[in-house]
Each structure stands twice: as C-alpha cells, then as structure tokens.
C-alpha cells in the first residue's frame, strides 16, 4: 500500500503541472503537455515495475527497454526495413493507387458504383487480417505476401472514401462546370479530384495503422529470419522481453510517424479545407 504513495504523488504532480500549462495554451505548451503526459506514463510504469518487483519476463521497465532499443538498433533497423518499408509501405502504396484508380474508373458508371459500393462497404468492415495465412501460402515467405495482405486490407476503405469524395462536390459546383460546358476530364481534374482530397486523406490516415497490423500479422504465418513480427515471436521464445518491447516501441514510433507524415501531407494538400484552417479566436 505504501508503495502506492509515491506513484500517486507523481501522478497528481504531473496532472497539476499539465493543468496549469494547458491554461497558458501557447505553442510551446501545446507540445509540452502531451510530452509531459507521456513521460509521466513512462515514469509511472518504471515505478510500478520497480516498487512491485515485477519480473522483467512479464513486463520490463522502460529503462531496460530503452537500453535494449539502443543496443539492438541494428537489428531494429533491419526489421523496420523488412516489415514497415518493404511490407507495409509498398502494400499501402499499391493498395492506395489501385483504390484511387478503381474509384475513378467506376466513377463514370453508376451501375458499377451501385454494384461495387455496397460490397466495398461490406468488405471494408471485414476482419481481412484473416487472409494472412492464405497470402503467405500464395505469395511466399518474404515481404511480397505481407505487401499483398496490406494491399487487400487498405484497398476497400480507401476505395469507399475516394468514391464518396468524388461525389462530394455540391450541385452548384457541378452546375457551374455545366454552364462552362466543361468536358469530363476537366471537371474530374479541376473539380472532383481536389474536392475528393479530404475524403481520400481520411481513408489514407485510417489505413496507415491497418497497414502495420496487416504486415505484422502476416509475418506470424511465415517469414524470413527478419522482420518485426518475426523478431517479436522469436524474442518471446528466448525470454528477451526488453527486445520484444523495443520492437513494439519501434513499431509504435513508425506507426505514429507514418500517420503524422500522411497528416502533414494532408495539411499541405487540403490547406483550403475548413478543418485545416484555424478558426478565429
């Protein structure tokens, strides 16, 4: 019980500090506050592990994880390249491009739209990770099968968003195009594509985390001797939990970065959208 006191104290202290900082609401504090929050979580974790002597094969302390992260950065980098760059990223890019192309292709055919959209909506809600064993069987052990899983996982959410986006122009804008007698490709390029961007990026952002899950799950069904999923299962077998958590950390960093980069590009591309503009006051 006594152990809980310092933990509680740190929690309350950090909470108070954050509450105070967030009142100021400047540019620095907006970065500082989430940082302090994260650091506090780590601190609490460290304290719990130490004060309650949690065995490191169950839950290593953040300090151990950090040390392992630094010591194994070569391995982590290799795994990152294998899983994130080769598996997830390639699949995500291929899947996105395919979805965008498909959306444009069916955009002209209401029949196809009405046929594909309900199915697309349906498939987007399915637990597609389940195809991972099948993809490993079809595309082999290396990153190609991971990529294939990711392609299928990201395709439908992006397709659905993109189709909705292409339809998102309002009547007035389409009427304008009609009064100017704009041909199809012109109105696609100059009206519907830009208008679809906020929707497209919505889909792209959602699928960043899907891509990571897909690539790692697929490694579980077979992989070469590198990759984050491989390393995690091997390291668990060797009771090297700090390395396991270092991989988890790497994946979380990669995922957050991935998301952040897409969000940044979104900000650049859809700078005009109200959600990207700071309102007055």
């Amino acid at each position: 019980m006594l152990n809980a006191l310092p933990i509680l104290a740190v929690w309350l202290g950090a909470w108070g500090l954050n509450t105070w900082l967030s009142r100021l609401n400047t540019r620095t504090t907006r970065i500082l506050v989430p940082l302090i929050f994260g650091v506090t979580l780590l601190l609490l974790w460290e304290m719990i592990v130490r004060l309650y002597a949690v065995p490191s094969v169950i839950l290593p302390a953040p300090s151990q994880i950090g040390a392992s992260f630094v010591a194994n950065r070569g391995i982590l980098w290799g795994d990152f390249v294998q899983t994130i760059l080769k598996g997830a990223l390639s699949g995500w890019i291929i899947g996105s491009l395919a979805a965008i192309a498909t959306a444009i292709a069916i955009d002209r055919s209401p029949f196809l739209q009405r046929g594909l959209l309900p199915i697309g909506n349906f498939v987007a809600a399915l637990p597609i990770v389940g195809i991972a064993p099948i993809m490993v069987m079809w595309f082999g052990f290396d990153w190609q099968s991971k990529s294939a899983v990711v392609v299928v996982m990201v395709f439908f959410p992006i397709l659905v968003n993109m189709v909705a986006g292409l339809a998102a122009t309002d009547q007035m804008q389409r009427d304008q195009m009609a009064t100017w007698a704009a041909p199809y490709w012109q109105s696609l390029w100059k009206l519907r594509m830009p208008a679809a961007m906020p929707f497209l990026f919505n889909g792209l952002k959602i699928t960043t985390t899907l891509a990571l899950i897909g690539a790692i799950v697929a490694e579980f069904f077979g992989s070469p001797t590198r990759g984050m999923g491989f390393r995690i299962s091997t390291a668990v077998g060797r009771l090297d939990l700090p390395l396991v958590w270092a991989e988890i950390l790497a994946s979380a960093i990669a995922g957050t970065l991935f998301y952040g980069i897409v969000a940044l590009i979104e900000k650049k591309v859809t700078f005009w959208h109200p959600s990207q503009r700071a309102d007055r006051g």
Partner: protein
Amino acid sequence: QELTLQLKWVTQAQFAGYYVALDKGFYEEEGLDVTILAGGPDIAPTQVLAGGGADVIVEWMPAALAAREKGLPLVNIAQPFKQSGMMLTCLKESGIADPTTDFAGKTLGVWFSGNEYPFLSWMSTLGLSTEGGPDGVTVLKQGFNVDPLLQKQAACISTMTYNEYGQVLDAGISPDDLVTFKYEDQGVATLEDGLYVLESTLEDSAKVTDLVRFVRASMKGWEYTRENPEEAAEIVLENDETGAQTLEHQVRMATEIAKLTEGSNGTLDEADYQRTVDILMAGGSDPVISKAPEGAFTTMITDRAFD
C-alpha cells in the same frame, strides 16, 4: 490440491499422457485437481511459468536451458520423452542427399519461438551459416503447416515424426519422393518434452509432494497411452476445443509418440542430459548456451515417485 500444467503446443496426442491421466482420473486418485492449458504459436511456456500462470510446464530442454541462462531458474523434474522426434524432411527433387554437402544454398523451414535451438546447433556443427548466401542456408520462419514443402517454397522443412511428417504423406506425397534426416540419426538430438518447474517451487515441501504425485500420475497416463493408443487419441480429441483434429491423425500421432516415450519411466537419464548440453554448447560462434548449467535438473521428484 490444485495444479496447472502449461503445454508446449495445441491439444494433440503429443500430450496424450496428461490428458489420459486427467480423463482416467489418475490425477484425482492422487488427490490432485489438475488444469491443462493448451499452448500455441506465440505462447512461451517459460514466460507463463515465470508469470505464475502455471506450476509445471512441458518444454524442450534447449529452450529451458536457454531460459535458465537468461536468469529464469528452470529445473527439469521429469523427462517422459526419451528420444527426439525432430527431423528435416526434404523433397527428393531438391537434390539433397547428404546433409554435410548438400544443404548449402538451400532454403530450409525452421520453427522459431524457442524451437530453433536444435536446428541452430546442427547447422553450426555442420559449419553452415544461417544467414543465406551460397555457403549458408536460407532460413524461413516456418508457419504452422507443411505448405512450404508442398508449394516448394523450401527445399526442406522441419517435421516431427509424429505430426507434420504424417501431414506431408496425407497431402499425397509418397515417402519415395521424400528424404528425411532425423536429428537422432545425425547425432544432434536434444531432449524434447520434459516437465519443468521453478527452483522456488522445489523449496516448498508441500508443493514437492504434489509434484511427486503429479509425475507419478502422468507417467501412469503415458503408460496407458502406450497400451491404448486409440483410446488415448479419442480422449485427446474430446479435449480439443478447436475441433480441427481428426481421429485418424491423432491415432497415428499416439502410436508414433509411443516410440519416443518407450524406455522412459520419467526419470531423466544423466547421459541424455549431458549429450544435450554438449550439443547446445558445441555451436561455433553463437552457441545456444555458453556454459554448462548447474542444478538444471533434479531426480528427486522421480526418485520419490517411483520408490
């Protein structure tokens, strides 16, 4: 008395002895209330033991010794499996006839999650790198089935005599099209399914008594399995919650397993232990364990059980 046993793998006849002991009431007779937890691909029994999720685990000795060197004080208290059932199964068309010369440049399927140690030891005795290239072997983390061989994604895959080998045959490949290398024959066999507990458990005399009873009942289960493989297979099937096992396959597994438990009353043979340690330490640059472990086994339990 309650006791939890963590298996190394999913419910199958590999663990028939324990299920039979449970089903036939052998544990009950000893006054034990035993819970059997099935394993799975990412379940490391050693971790479960360390976390207090189980009292006893079924584990292979290489993994147990590696964990011990990592600081988890595992102790072998009984060794029902006398022989190794592990082998590499290759397609004849891949042109592999002799392990010492033909593996180089080939792709081999291997199980990980702590099961890779025997293979790594073997490769290092052969002097083959596992990093690929023309002078080494390319290693695949084999999934859960024999597809890599059927799909020709690997020249050889890891199989157990009692399980995956049968699946290869079931898939329609005749033994004539296959070449197999048993670890026993290659002189790199390590001890497989043994029972392990934490050192601290052995310091508690009440627990020790339970363990003695547990081992005695389990071995009775194994004996029963050897005599009635068919019934044992049915018992396993009843306990399989996935509903994926077939009776045919489990009967074959029970029969093959019987060959491996043959000749063991559960007591660990020190010579076997020593051989395993030697093999694990032999691995050239990166041995599985770096120094001979101490106190990694005890015959106290089996001694008391079969007195």
